[in-house]
């Protein structure tokens, strides 16, 4: 008997994530945004072949939605797999978010550009301390 493939769906949030990752890669020399984004597409599509290949990382306490993660190079695809039902015999792979390994750096730079110099220096110090684990790192004077 032929196995029914799961439905594949993307949320508006995951689309925004892809757009943000594309912009980041575009700004980065050698980022190859089109190639990388197509890899995400290919691997998301591949998830429907074996959606339970990746372990559950988190469960929504109310809906009991199970979140899983697939790494694709520098990206992580965060998705929920809904088990088959009578109405949806293949189940559903619902892509909820895409994260990039350097995302925290990206967000930091965006916030930084909106700040004044003094505030920027203060946050750079905090950032370096957090990154290094050294409470004195990034502090001057």
């Amino acid at each position, binding site marked *: 008997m032929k196995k029914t493939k799961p439905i*594949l*769906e993307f949320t508006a949030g995951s689309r925004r994530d892809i*757009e943000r990752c594309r912009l980041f890669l575009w700004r980065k020399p050698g980022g*190859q945004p089109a190639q990388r984004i197509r890899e995400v597409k290919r691997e998301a599509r591949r998830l429907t072949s074996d959606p339970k290949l990746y372990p559950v990382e*988190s*469960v929504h306490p109310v809906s009991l939605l199970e*979140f899983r993660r697939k*790494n694709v190079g*520098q990206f992580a695809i965060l998705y929920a797999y809904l088990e088959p039902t009578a109405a949806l015999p293949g189940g559903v792979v619902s892509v909820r978010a895409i994260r990039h390994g350097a995302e925290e*750096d990206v967000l930091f730079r965006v916030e930084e550009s909106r700040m004044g110099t003094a505030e920027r220096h203060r946050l750079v110090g905090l950032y370096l301390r957090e990154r290094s684990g050294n409470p004195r790192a990034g502090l001057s004077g």
Partner: protein
Amino acid sequence: MNSPLTHETVIDEDEHGADSAIAARLRIDYEEIMASTAPDQPGGRIVYSSADYETEEEADAALDAFFNSILEAPYEED
């Protein structure tokens, strides 16, 4: 199942080498993802579903179109 809502993970180094310097620790906040992609939130709206198409080929073509619409959009600086 009792699982934490926040995970830290290490993203594999890029297989093509171009981004290897940014193989960084990624903090995934599942609580935020769950909240922002709940069905009643704008981020939870389904913008692509293969269920909307009669055949797998049509769904694949629509997925290509969905990604192409992202890739072909003009870049907008923040």
